[in-house]
């Protein structure tokens, strides 16, 4: 009997010790977790201003107390959930992304600094949900059907990952399918009749770009080797959310445009007073619901100029005409910049402001001030960048395109609004311009990007 009592006492003591030992481990884990979160929180407090994304305008509060910590091949990863201010949510224009979850994700690099990503998780169906705690960088819910978007906040690289039954789905390798898979994510409101977008966050591109700074692969970790859906990095001042032909032409204008074009792009580089967001939309409409090639809008409160380019229109137009449309919209952006700059040392802008009233409106100002530069820019771009098309024109008409031809192109988008500069032209000049402009549609529609 004494033996049994002794055995029971020993067992009770062992259980007690085990219990104590378990408590000890939990305490250590809790301390280590709290310390990791605090380290990130302190770092974030010091470096927040270096991170760039429209989402920062809409974050309600970071839920540090609910931080999700996971560990694996890429080290400790800390994800801090947050919600958006005043009932705002996010989705795409088709309203096919549901149940948005937002997180800031911190990955420590070798230099003891953090790479920060904006992570958005969406489900494919309204009814599904994401189990927050078990859904992290190294682990995806078993039945998860949806998308995860990663935006590297240090360089603007965007990555889209798609999951089916918790497994990553590789993107299509054909260009056409990749174009169709492009998703733009917006901030907006869900109402009874669907999603109402108000602010574009970013658009996703197709396949790998070959850029060196490849983002990590969310969902099961696996390091930086695979990069199924990254788009080109963007300069923070010109937020490039274009797709397809427009993206290609914008990139060629930015890198190969003549001095006039470079000068316009440079106005929005560095510590510019204004930022430009240029975006492709399937269709773009005027206030009278008429379909148009593009629009440029100015938001003085946010010091943001937004250019919208119609994919539908550009797909049916010659490449050079499409470049003309993009350049035309950038000139509107430059006019808004000149009219609204507070930099009194900008002599060019000051002079422009003084005479702008005499032009009555932007299109007339463009015709009076910019037409000649546009003509030269289109000519240089055709000859040096779209050289095959330039040669085709020469072979077809038996002559090189004349300056008058490029001037006729530059009148596009101006003469139709019957600006004074156009109505003041002699009739024979107008006839000649219209005749040369009729040659534009025979130019090549396609453009190849390296």
């Amino acid at each position, binding site marked *: 009997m004494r033996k049994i009592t002794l055995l029971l006492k020993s067992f009770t003591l062992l259980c007690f010790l085990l219990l104590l030992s378990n408590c000890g481990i939990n305490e250590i884990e809790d301390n280590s977790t709290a310390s990791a979160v605090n380290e990130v929180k302190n770092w974030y407090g010091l470096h927040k201003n270096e991170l760039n994304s429209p989402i920062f305008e809409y974050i309600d509060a970071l839920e540090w107390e609910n931080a999700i910590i996971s560990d694996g091949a890429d080290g400790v990863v800390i994800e801090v959930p947050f919600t958006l*201010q*005043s*009932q*705002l949510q996010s989705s795409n224009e088709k309203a096919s992304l549901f149940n948005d979850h937002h997180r800031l994700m911190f990955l420590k690099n070798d230099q003891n600094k953090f790479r920060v990503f904006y992570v958005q998780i969406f489900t494919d169906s309204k009814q599904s949900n994401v189990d927050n705690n078990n859904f992290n960088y190294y682990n995806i819910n078993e039945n998860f059907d949806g998308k995860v978007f990663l935006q590297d906040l240090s360089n603007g690289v965007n990555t889209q990952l798609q999951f089916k039954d918790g497994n990553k789905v590789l993107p299509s390798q054909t260009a056409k399918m990749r174009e169709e898979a492009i998703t733009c994510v917006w901030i*907006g*409101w869900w109402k009874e009749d669907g999603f*109402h*977008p*108000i*602010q574009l966050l970013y658009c996703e591109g197709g396949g790998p770009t070959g850029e060196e700074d490849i983002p990590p692969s969310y969902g099961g970790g696996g390091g930086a080797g695979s990069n199924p859906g990254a788009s080109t990095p963007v300069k923070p001042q010109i937020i490039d959310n274009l797709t397809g032909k427009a993206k290609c032409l914008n990139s060629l204008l930015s890198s190969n445009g003549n001095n006039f074009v470079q000068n316009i792009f440079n106005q929005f580089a560095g510590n510019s007073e204004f930022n430009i967001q240029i975006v492709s939309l399937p269709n773009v*409409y*005027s*206030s009278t*619901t008429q379909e*148009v*090639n*593009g*629009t*440029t*809008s*100015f*938001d*003085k*409160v*946010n010091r943001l100029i937004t250019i919208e380019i119609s994919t539908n229109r550009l797909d049916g137009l010659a490449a050079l005409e499409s470049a003309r*449309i993009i350049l*035309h919209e950038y000139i*509107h952006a430059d006019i*808004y910049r000149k*009219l*609204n700059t507070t930099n009194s040392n900008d002599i060019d802008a000051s002079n422009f402001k003084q005479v702008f009233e005499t032009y*009555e*409106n*932007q*299109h007339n100002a463009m015709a009076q001030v910019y037409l000649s530069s546009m003509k030269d820019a289109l000519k240089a771009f055709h000859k040096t960048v779209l050289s095959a098309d330039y040669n085709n024109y020469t072979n077809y008409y038996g002559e090189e395109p004349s300056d008058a031809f490029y001037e006729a192109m530059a009148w596009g*988008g101006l003469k*139709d*609004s019957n600006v004074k500069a156009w109505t003041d032209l002699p009739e024979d000049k107008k006839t000649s311009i219209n005749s040369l402009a009729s040659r534009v549609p025979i130019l090549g529609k396609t453009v190849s990007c390296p």
Partner: protein
Amino acid sequence: MKKYIYLYAAFLFGFSLYAQEKSNGTFFFKLDDSYIVESKTSPNKFLLKDKNEDEVFYFKGVEIVNDLKPKEVLCLKDFVRTSKYYNKNKKNKLNNSELVNFFSNSTVYLVKRKNDKTEFIKVNPIVEIYD
């Protein structure tokens, strides 16, 4: 020490006066589709019936608030047409850039009655040009 506290308080007061000077105040305008209407092609874009030929002024919704108590809800048509930013004798009647300047320094809500509830849509002024 007291001297520094007074200096600091004076600085804060001065700064607050400056901030008030900059702001044109808060305006509540009725949204009833008679003068200002939501675009059919772009949600949260609230267009005025007065518009210029190739450039349009509009308000963009940025936030919905439910629990405000405005002292007065104004008619935007009256407000615009009696302002210095409207000239009925000109082809382009609205002075878009000055309207944007004015409303950029104001807080503007559009007030909408919906299912017996009042919705306040906070908006920013925008100008946009086509083609």
